[in-house]
Each structure stands twice: as structure tokens, then as C-alpha cells.
């Protein structure tokens, strides 16, 4: 082995850098399956749609169904309730009521407070979240903070007059 090869600094630096980059990329790539394994598994994703039979919900009544493990409020609204929520656009996150429903009689919202993720209770007109005191009206719009946003409307579709699927648009 020639002396000049042993002391070839540039060449050695290049090889060290190359090895570091390839090794680093290998470590990063190895991390991918570990990180990905913590994302929702296939069986969790499989419960991404929920079908609901609406036949036995009377006007003014509410049903809570589970969709992706989260509560979804289905409220069959009376003409008076529809009238009162159509009168305003909400307070903190203004949105007209008809932009939040497909059929004014049926309000479908995710029952998760947009503040810290608690489940609000149906109280009087609308909902109240007992964790931090947020209030929502019968359109699921926030009327009193600290929640910053209206209750989220999930993607849903009427399969028939009294059959609903949540999770499919």
C-alpha cells in the first residue's frame, strides 16, 4: 500500500461523509415502519363508516351514535327549532344554518367539543360542554367560548328517507 493512499485526506473525508449520509438515510428509513405502526391500524380504519336507522327518532329528540369511536349527535329538529336557528348566523364562528345541514329537519354533528375534545351535554336549546363551559345552539354553532369553532359536521349521506350513512359523502 502506497503512503500517498493512506494520507489521502480528501478521499477519506469524502468516504466518511458518504458513509454518514447513507447510514443516516438507512436509520431514517428504518424509523418509517416504527412510526407508521403507531397510526390507526386496518381494523380501526374499517369502522370509518356508520349506518344509522332514523325511523324511531321522534321530532325534537336526539340520538348519539358512534362513528370512528367518536359520538355523533343526530338531532331531529322541530319546525320551531329550525326557525330559531335560521334567525341568526351564530356568534363566534358565523355560519348560516342551511350550510350545516342537508335536510333542515336532521342536524348531524360530531359531538366533540372543538376546544379540548369533551362531549357536550344536550341542555335546553343546544348543548353545553361541562369541561370548560362552551355552549352550542341547535345548529351546533358555538354561542359561548372558550370553544373556537362550531361542532364539526361529518361527511354523511341519506341512503333513503330514514337511513343515513356517516363517513361517506
Amino acid at each position, binding site marked *: 500500500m502506497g503512503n500517498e493512499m493512506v494520507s489521502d485526506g480528501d478521499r477519506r473525508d469524502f468516504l466518511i461523509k458518504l458513509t454518514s449520509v447513507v447510514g443516516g438515510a438507512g436509520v431514517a428509513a428504518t424509523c418509517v415502519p416504527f*412510526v407508521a405502526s403507531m397510526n390507526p391500524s386496518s381494523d380501526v380504519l374499517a369502522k370509518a363508516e356508520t349506518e344509522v336507522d332514523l325511523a324511531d327518532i321522534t321530532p325534537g329528540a336526539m340520538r*348519539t351514535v358512534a362513528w370512528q*369511536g*367518536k359520538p355523533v349527535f343526530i338531532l331531529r329538529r322541530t319546525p320551531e327549532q329550525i326557525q330559531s336557528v335560521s334567525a341568526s348566523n351564530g356568534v363566534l364562528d358565523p355560519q348560516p344554518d342551511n350550510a350545516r345541514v342537508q335536510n333542515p329537519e336532521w342536524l348531524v354533528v360530531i359531538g366533540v367539543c372543538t376546544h*379540548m*375534545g*369533551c362531549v357536550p351535554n344536550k341542555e335546553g336549546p343546544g348543548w353545553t360542554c361541562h*369541561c*370548560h363551559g362552551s355552549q352550542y345552539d341547535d345548529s351546533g354553532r358555538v354561542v359561548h367560548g372558550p370553544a373556537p369553532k362550531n361542532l364539526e359536521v361529518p361527511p354523511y349521506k341519506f341512503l333513503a328517507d330514514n337511513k343515513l350513512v356517516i363517513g361517506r359523502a
Partner: protein
Amino acid sequence: MFANVINWIDQRFPLTSFVKHELTGYPTPRNLSYWWNFGFLAGLVLVLQVATGIFLAMHYKADAATAFDSIQHIMRDVNYGWLLRYMHAVGASAFFFVIFVHMARTLYYGSYRAPRELLWWTGQGLLLLLMATAFMGYLLPWGQMSFWGATVITNLFRATPFIGDDVVIWLRGDFTVGDATLTRFFALHYLFPFLIIGAVVIHLVALHTVKSSNPSGIDLAHKDNIPFHPYFTAKDFYGLGIFLIVYSVFVFFMPDSLIEPANNIPANPMQTPNHIVPEWYFLPFYAILRSVPNMVGGVVAMGLSVMMFAFMPFLDRSRIPGGAHYRPIFKLQFYLFMIDMLVLGWVGYVPQTSSTTIIGQIATLCYFGSFFLIPFISRVEERWLIKRGLPQEVMTLIDKEKKEIAERKLKNSQRKGGKA
């Protein structure tokens, strides 16, 4: 025979010299008060938690369908299961109590100051690990408080810029806290104590490099240090006796006093309890979270409130040794800070009303204010104390320190100059 065995080992492993240097003969300031017991106590609680935890894990089932029932199984059917579980649950509170006192002592006596900054920061890391471990452990009983506590805290990660929602789903492994969340929290709750043990070793290596501080704040001359054994083994064991009495009172006579009643209801993802509160040791930080009206702001403020302690070596500009003991204004500030912590704890515990919100906001301002004012107050206080007259020994010490810093700076600049 015994001497021969020791001799055989010593030729292959530095047993005798290690024990002599780091344990029995470890030089310790002779004037340490009982406030210096709490580091040892923290180590002991860690051992208790690991021991009880390993035996609990032999009976616990980390599955959403069976977790709650397996706790009942431990409480009713497993031999001494009730004892193991109550020791572990009370032990978590004891751990935080001991650590909080340990930190308060460090703040009061200024033990975080040079040369103990790294010691203080490894302690800060230990605090974060402890908080994470306790939080994940609290989900395992799978009661209503467990479930909703984990829901609210994992929700905080929604404040991550751009990918907040994805981060929350990734952490939970589900769209809500669910079976996947429970199982991974159990796995990590079992792992983290071993990370803590590793961090404790680093903490102790740092301690044995810079040695213990002491109430006078002056680095004692060699003749003022005494060997750790028998003097401080005896002192630590006396403190341990007191600690075990209080611990046993909780374990045997009031084990439920620190467990929220709502946690005896199985987790229900469809129904939030009307009043959710975190464990007592998180209350002040939870109050800060709730005091900031903006969600992201609240999360940042809460994170910062835990991390503020790490800045103390930079914030405290005073050169007066001995911490609050010889610094009247700092002492006043220390006690006001303790009161502020209690106020925040109370605000975090009670249901939120408009008046508690305002009290919480004022207390939050005081919390951060007391940190941000330290640089100014400590400088003014130092000038005032020097003007009022300090003992000659302390003045010599400050002058000596000043000279050392100047020398170090000179040396550094010379070294840099020499290299170029």
C-alpha cells in the same frame, strides 16, 4: 476468605474504590439540612414504583375491554393486590411531592447556579420524564377520569403547526383514545421508568462531579466535608422513617383520598363527566392552560411554565451566595411564588367560573412575571446588599469569583487567538 473474594473482584472491577469514592467516603458538606434528604427519598420512591409496578403488570391487562376489570381483579382477587395497587397509586403522588420539595429546595438555596447548571437541567429532564410516565400510567385503570384526561392531554398536540390533527391520531393510533392508545401507553409506561433510571445515573454523575451544594452557598474547604457514611446514611434513613410513616398513613388509612371518584366508572367515550380535573400534581400547570383564552397560546404557556425552571441559571444574576437564606428580596419572591403555585393549584381544581378565570389569569401573569423579573430584581438586590455591607468573607468570595471569570475569559480569548 471474604477478603480474598473482594481482592479477586478488585483486580477485575473497581469495586472497593468505587464504593469508597462514590458511596461511603463520598465527601459531603457537614452543614446539610434535612431539606437535602429529598433527593435520596426521590430515588427510594423510584425503587418502590418500579417494584410495585412490575408486580402489578403481572396481573394487569392492557386491553380496553378488560383493563378496568383487571384492576378490580387486582383489588379483590390477587393476593395483596390491593396493597400493591395502593402503594403504586400513592407512590405516584409521593414521587411528585418529594420532587417538588427537592426543586423548591434547589430554588431556595440557589443550588442551580454555577457550577451546577447541568445538574439542574438533568433534573429538569427527569421532571419531564416523570410527568410523561405519570400521565400515561393514569390512563391504565381505564376509568372515566383516565379516559378524559388522556383525551384532553393528547388533544393538546392539535396545537402542532400544520399537522396537528395527524399528530393526535398518530399518538392515539385511533380517531379517539381507544384500545390502541391504552396498549401503547402501557408499553411506554413500562419503558419510561428505565429511562428515568438512566437519567438518574446521569444526574448522579453530574452531582458527584460538582458535589452537593449546602445552605451557606459557599463551596466548603476540604476540611468541612465529611464522609457520606455513616453521617448522611444515618440522616437520610431518619428522613426515610418520617417519609414512610406519612406514606403508610396514605396507603393504609386513606388510599382513595387522591383518587377521583369518577375514575371508578369505566371509561365511556360517549359521555364526559361534568367536572374533569387532573391529578393534584398537574393542577397548577392545568390552571395556566385554562387561563389563556387562545387554545394554542394555552398549550404554549403550559409547556413554557414547566420549562421556565431550566432558565433559572441565566435569570438569576445575583452573585450573593447562599440563595434565599442571605437574600431578603429573593426570599420574599420565593414565598410569593409558592403562594402563587397554591393559588394556581386551587384554580385548576375548582370548576371554571368567570371569577376563577380572572384569578387564574392574574396568577398566571404572576407565575411568569416572577421568572422574568428575577434578572432585574437579583441585580438590584445584589447592589443593595453590597451597599448595606456584607461580611468580609462573602466579599472576598465574590471578588475571587469575579477574578476567576476574568481569567477564564482571558484564557479563552488567548486560546482562540492562538488557533487563528
